[in-house]
């Protein structure tokens, strides 16, 4: 096969996988803390829209990315408020976010608004000169790099920090976590907000880096593919990244086939691969996926504002002594 086709497929793979990776990483924060997140799609969509609008009004791409992440975080806050404070079913809460995002972005979108440019590739010196690899890996726009870095950052936070340990404790056994003095509500709230912000960066990728403008329903199910990647990757950042790359590759091949033909498989069947694989993994046909034990269950402890404030101030003052 022509080397140029290979490079273009690999570049497309990375490009397609970026929003999926970020969505899945966002999902990991939320679900590891015990809050089911089927709202990734809605968080990405509203953030994509917010990023676009900030870009239209300020023309500043950095502010646009930050704006997208803030709005993603706000959607996370709503999800947290409904499912943690009001204890409504987390899947329904996620559905509320998803419908709300479609409605609000569609309502506020003016079709006249024109974009003020998008993020352009930053070739990394020397490394980008390596043939093939350099072109694929080291000549990308900033959010694509950030997504790759975020994989390692998320893994570090989850498995190497006190915060990660607390998050996993709350997601596996909230009552035990509560007895050792972890504020279950606070840990969940913050993780769900982070979840929205990270997924929001994935949304920003669409309007500020890939497409460059907004259209209604621009996420087009990517949030649900991210959910699939999260499960296929067994709630692990590296696994989720691998799944996102695989799904991105499936997508890239699908697009390539539509252009060039070859391979006697209808492209729709290649498009199904992520979903079929996820079902197989979930059903235990391809290794068993084990979700965090307490995911989906609202926590029924006491909730006092005073305690939350105390915990927040403690967080900033001292390193927690109980876990070393």
């Amino acid at each position: 096969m022509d080397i140029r086709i290979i490079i273009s497929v690999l570049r497309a793979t990375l490009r397609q996988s970026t929003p999926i990776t970020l969505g899945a990483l966002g999902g990991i924060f939320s679900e590891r803390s015990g809050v089911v997140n089927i709202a990734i799609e809605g968080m990405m969509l509203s953030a994509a829209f917010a990023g676009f609008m900030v870009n239209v009004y300020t023309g500043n791409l950095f502010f646009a990315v930050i704006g997208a992440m803030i709005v993603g975080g706000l959607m996370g806050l709503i999800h947290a408020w409904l499912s943690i404070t009001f204890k409504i079913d987390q899947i329904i809460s996620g559905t509320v976010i998803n419908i709300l995002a479609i409605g609000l972005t569609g309502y506020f979108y003016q079709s006249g608004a024109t974009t003020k440019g998008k993020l352009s590739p930053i070739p990394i010196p020397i490394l980008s000169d390596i043939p093939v690899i350099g072109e694929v890996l080291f000549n990308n726009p900033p959010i694509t790099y950030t997504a790759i870095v975020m994989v390692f950052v998320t893994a570090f936070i989850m498995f190497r920090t006190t915060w990660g340990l607390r998050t996993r404790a709350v997601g596996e056994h909230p009552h035990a976590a509560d007895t050792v003095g972890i504020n279950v509500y606070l840990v969940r709230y913050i993780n769900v907000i982070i979840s929205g912000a990270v997924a929001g960066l994935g949304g920003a990728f669409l309007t500020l880096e890939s497409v460059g403008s907004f259209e209604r329903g621009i996420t087009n199910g990517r949030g649900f593919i991210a959910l699939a990647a999260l499960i296929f990757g067994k709630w692990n950042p590296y696994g989720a990244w691998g799944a996102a790359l695989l799904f991105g590759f499936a997508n890239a091949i699908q697009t390539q086939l539509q252009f060039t033909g070859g391979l006697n498989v209808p492209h729709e069947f290649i498009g199904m691969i992520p979903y079929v694989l996820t079902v197989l993994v979930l059903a235990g046909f391809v290794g068993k996926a084990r979700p965090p034990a307490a995911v989906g269950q609202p926590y029924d402890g006491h909730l006092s504002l005073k305690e939350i404030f105390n915990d927040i101030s403690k967080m900033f003052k001292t390193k927690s002594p109980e876990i070393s």
Partner: protein
Amino acid sequence: MEEKSTFRTDQIMAIIQPFIVPVLAIFTSVIVGSIFLLAYGFNPIDAYSGLLDGAFGSNRRIAKTILNTIPYIFGGLAVAFAFKGGLFNIGAQGQLFMGAISAAYVGFVFEGLPFIIHMPLAVLAGALGGAFWGAIPGFLKAYTGAHEVITTIMFNYIALSFVGYLVSGPLKLEGSVIAKTPEIADAAKLPFFGTGELGLHYGIPLAILVAFIIYWLIWKTPFGFELRTVGLNPSAASYSGISVKRVTIFTMAISGLLAGLAGTVDTLGLIHHFEPSFNLGYGFDSITIALLAKNHPLGVILTSFLFGAMSAGSTRMQRASGVPSEIIQVVQALILMFVAAEQLIRIMYRLRSQEGEGLQLSSGWGAG
């Protein structure tokens, strides 16, 4: 005398009680919706009166409202039925697609069949298409513990790709630019009744009949008893000798069947061919419809009518007052939020809370 009158008030209250929260939820959502309208410089009264005019302003519009209501009833029933069995069917959209394409296929592939055979056959095909697509996640849940929320989401997208392949490949209308199936035979179409502008097809009596059948199935049959027991407490059900696996598979199959019928009535009654974009957007709406009706089959008829009116009226509203029709989705999301977070409504209107009204429908991915 005094005693008698209070007795009557109690009776009235008992009838009104279940309606209070849903009505207040709708009311609050409309008010919050007005804030969004004002924020964008629209007059809420103009917008909502445009909506009402669009939904009920003429015979033709009323007919449109009722025609829109029909698939909502089936979709709402699908979700409500699964909820009664403790299952969250988020896959109504995929089941609807599979039902619609099956009905369309049977509708156009046979020629010269008499109406009395062809139409029921097409309806049956649609029902079975949906039932099949619902049964697979049910089976996976029963035998592998795969959570139905994720599997049904995945099956939505698998169905979307699959029907996309069918209408652009083997079942494509030859020579058409748009990916769609050929038109179904006249003998497979749901006939219209009513005259002139108030023309309705037989999907509406079918929908109401099916709602009553589902009501009967849930509350008057042994299967319904098993279904509700499994829904309330699967381990207790299993301990008392109910086969939770069997009930789970049947619940999902029937739920899928109902969703399949939602696609079927539109295909056979209104669209007369299958084209994926005409059947989109029912999955999430069905969830709101079911929850607003508190998963009661007869309540679903009422809430579907509300949704039918909103969708019929929104186009007119957009044309008359320039309000983007998406405001309807904002209001619907708010309705879902307020219905699910009943506590919110109770705090806002200072209502006393009721025993055991919490709504925990599913128990996360891990629940086997």
